[in-house]
């Protein structure tokens, strides 16, 4: 799957960040994201690298689109996140830390 996956930045340490994808946490790299990224921002992760910061105004729609597309294909989504044994919780993401951080 070459589509990348949206996640929320929880914590940043230099070029590395912890990000959350539907309640699955993963370490990703920020080397090539190309914009300054802060805690609470959403990024598109591909193969462990953030390749784009998702504009604030588009976060909600982007997440909804991914959820509808990935439903039934959770295994592949997890492969894309790099956490084969984890469990995704769709519908959880927007109500999470973003609200608290902002």
């Amino acid at each position, binding site marked *: *799957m070459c589509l990348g996956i949206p996640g929320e930045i929880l914590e940043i340490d230099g070029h590395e960040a912890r990000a959350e994808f539907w309640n699955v946490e993963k370490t990703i790299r920020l080397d090539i994201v190309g914009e300054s990224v802060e805690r609470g921002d959403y990024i598109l992760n591909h193969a462990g690298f953030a390749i784009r910061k998702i504009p604030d105004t588009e976060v909600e729609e982007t997440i909804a*689109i991914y959820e*509808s*597309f990935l439903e039934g294909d959770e295994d592949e989504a997890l*492969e894309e996140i790099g956490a084969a044994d984890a469990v995704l919780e769709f519908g959880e993401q927007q109500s999470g830390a973003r609200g608290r951080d902002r």
Partner: protein
Amino acid sequence: MTAEQTLQFREPEAANAIVDRLESMMDEIDEDVSVMHVCGSHEQAIAKFGLRTMLPEGLTVRMGPGCPVCVTNMPEVDEAVALAREGAIVATYGDMYRVPGTESSLGDVSARGATVEVVYSASEAVALARENPDREVVFFATGFETTAAPTAAVLEADPPSNFSVLSAHKYVPPAMEVVAELPDTDIDGFLAAGHAAVITGYGIFEPFVQKYHTPVVVGGFEPLDVLLGLERLLEYIRDGRTGLDNAYPRCVTRAGNTVALETLWNVFEKTTGEWRGIAEIPDANLVLREEYAEYDARKRFDIDPEGGESDPLTNDCLCGDIMAGTAEPDECSLFGEECTPTNPVGACMVSSEGPCKIWLEYGGTPEI
């Protein structure tokens, strides 16, 4: 995949409205139209949501060379196999593990004792090198711009000296030109991959549009995005115009991700190379620049891929023709019989972006 699932996607009314517009445009155009997409995720959306069954008569959506694993050349796999056999730890993305080389896949040699590690990211491959300072760790790197940029990033970040890269990274735009020039393909418009364009920007297709007078629309992977992309293409075709459009503005800009591009071109340069089953394509393979020679597995090791006989079944594999848009998976006599995801004959049955695997997974042969 059940029938209900096939029909269940966001905003069916919006989709139906687009399909109605496609139909009336096809009436106006009044001849057959062939559109090619260049992205495994597009094929997945099309097959999963049964989009082909919704399209008006006369409108065909073909798949093009949108699966990097599928076009990885056998000798490239053989190089990785040889390095693993000679004692290096070979790290690679999961998709490459079972891709057949001439005699063996990486999975085969791993079963015979070689160390092959499936990694999720280029940085995991670097971590492996740090954890194993006494071993050579070779990252067999595959994919288009979206994974080439991360490979470049880890090389720029001063990896350990026992780390090297065997690059099978591919660069799509020149391959589109080759496909556009093939005598058997008669493509009226291209739906380009949104995700590679996140990195490259959609402006990259401008020269192509000018040279071939063929419209290119960058589209997302979601069913509605795909339909919207087709609508834009039909508008161009109906009006007898060429042009470049971005139907995926959520994620793609004209300039792309300039930091990622700079990193990519700092480390890689383009070279001519074989795309499996398609052609030798100028400028469509990415190799490390001279400045990064110390990390280039091809320069560091004297790789001696053993020749040998390939599985005779591979002679019947149509993967290359499928990637060139001149054949479809179910035209292959091995499809779903001798060739399955657990026992693949060709790379198109291995990768999650591979059309044969996708067609088999989503109900065999999505109706055309």
